[in-house]
């Protein structure tokens, strides 16, 4: 079984603050993995390290077989990334956004045209290509962002809270798309707040205060802690961890908050 992501003891410090500490996990190719955890837990920092954008302070990781420290350019060319904000150019049309990202991924000429037509058809953007992104609804913007991330046929799709602030119907359509892509062999890493999204993942990672406190398939995890659903499991983990956390201890003693 080949690994899409293999990270060992990843750690990131910003000054004296440790955003991510000692994260290790292995993700097989073709799987969907979900990162779950409260805001500020370090999910985004972790993801950005895996994208080769942030340099880890300690530890090592390979993504698609490339080292994040020494081969970030190779990784960037092979992953598709979509963040929680729709990072599209609002004053450009859908097609102009696609043109830009095709160029940025070094696609040109006939090949670029083919790839653009392919994602437009795939995502169902046909009638919207001439529309300015600013005039699209949240759900459509999200689909355009996904289209931009898929232009260069990435082997790994990294989605950082892609469905935050999107209506339930659009969210459903979007998730179906992601699952279809995974079926076709694409590895997907997705961070989310929604437990229904997390439940459909092959693997789950609970991120809390910069640490990966649990990793495994949703069913295994539920069985292990004898919980019926992921919500309970999540709350259990958070409470369990929070009582151990020295920061919480100090806070209680000091009588703050």
């Amino acid at each position, binding site marked *: 079984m080949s690994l899409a992501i293999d990270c060992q003891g990843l750690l990131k410090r910003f000054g004296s603050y440790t955003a991510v500490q000692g994260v290790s996990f292995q993700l097989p190719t073709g799987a969907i993995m979900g990162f779950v955890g409260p805001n500020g837990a370090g999910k985004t920092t972790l993801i950005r390290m895996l994208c080769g954008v942030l340099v880890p302070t300690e530890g090592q990781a390979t993504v698609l077989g490339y080292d994040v420290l020494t081969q970030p350019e190779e990784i960037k060319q092979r*992953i598709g990334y979509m963040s929680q904000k729709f990072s599209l150019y609002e*004053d*450009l049309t859908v097609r*102009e956004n696609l*043109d830009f990202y095709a160029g*940025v*991924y070094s696609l040109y000429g006939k090949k670029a045209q083919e790839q653009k037509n392919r994602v437009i058809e795939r995502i169902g953007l046909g009638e919207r290509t001439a529309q300015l992104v600013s005039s699209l609804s949240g759900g459509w913007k999200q689909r355009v962002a996904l289209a931009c991330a898929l232009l260069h046929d990435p082997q790994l799709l990294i989605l950082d809270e892609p469905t935050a602030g999107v209506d339930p119907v659009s969210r459903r359509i979007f998730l179906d798309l992601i699952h279809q892509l995974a079926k076709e062999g694409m590895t997907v890493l997705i961070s989310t707040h929604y437990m229904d999204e997390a439940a459909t993942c092959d693997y789950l990672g609970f991120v809390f205060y910069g640490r990966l406190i649990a990793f495994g398939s949703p069913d295994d995890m539920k069985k292990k802690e004898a919980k019926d659903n992921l919500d309970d499991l999540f709350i259990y983990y958070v409470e369990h961890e929070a009582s151990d956390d020295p920061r919480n201890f100090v806070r209680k003693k000091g009588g703050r908050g």
Partner: protein
Amino acid sequence: MGGFSWVRFLAVLRKEFIHIRRDRASLIMAIAMPIGMLLLFGYAVNTDVDHLSTVVWDQSQTADSRDFITSIRNTQYLDPDEYVQGYHQIEGYLDSGKARVAVIIPPDFGKELQRDNGQGDVQVLVDGSDPTIARAAMSAVQMLGLNKSLEIQGVRLAARGAAAGTNMPLNIETRVWYNPDMKSMVFNIPALIGLILQNVIAMLTSFSIVREKERGTMEQVVVTPIRSLELLMGKLLPFVLIGFVSLTLILATGIFWFGVMPAGSIPLLVFLSTIFLFTILAIGLLISSVAKTQLQAMQMTFILILPSILLSGFIFPRETMPIPLKILGGLFPLTYFLNIVRGIFLKGVGMEYLWQDTLILCAFAIILVGIAAKKFKKNLD
């Protein structure tokens, strides 16, 4: 993964041009602002003092006094249009600002002039609230008094039959070079090229990068394989072009509207403006690396603009500044560029006199571009 990619660079370039085309505010800033500023500064920043409103209290009412008043009018500096009786009225005119200068001719003025060896007195009151105006008015009437005196003296001497003595013992001929009419417009318009380029380009450049940070698109772009050099070049090149458009507009307006013709070589001016443009792009880039929002970028640009207007020699001569301010002014590339444009426009000089300023400007360009590019790269990582 290889070096510079033209495909990625062109993708950024094309996108930037679409941004500029769609963003009406930038377009207006790039085209209307240079012309607007040129018209505004060209007319408002005018230190030429002439046609000052003047009141006259002519108590003499003789041919001589009327002749004197006509001479005053002929200087072009003073317009003796109002006639009053008494100091009380004069005070009213000066207090209200209806007149800047008051000329009082006493009753015996005509009689004294006609009398052999007589001396006619004239009192001139000047509103000194604005020193520039006061100085101009004073030197105008003093010059007039001297000329008038010499003229009358000549007539008197001739009447005595001393024909040989009418020649002046000393004759000073002054010629004003470069700006013979001493019009401040001729001095200001070339300098505006520098000022406008600085303001417009620094602001637009910093805006275009800060906007991406502010809207979160930069976050997406850094995850792509694009290199910082490709991104930087793609983002800056459009502003080099806008800079040239602005430069052409300012030159054309200066030449065809204000009639300020460059005495020197226009290609040299364009070439040296390009170097200046690079220092400004770098400043814009530096602002964008510090500023987080477009508002901050705007404020920082203004922090740059105000001292550069005051200290670069744009309005006030640097020679008379105290040393610390002079040094501070030396930190602005605009200071050196002003020497260059004024040199080329007014004096028509070439590199033989401008090489020092050019070298300093080059040094600024290299250092600023270096720092800015480094900071930009670091921000991306």
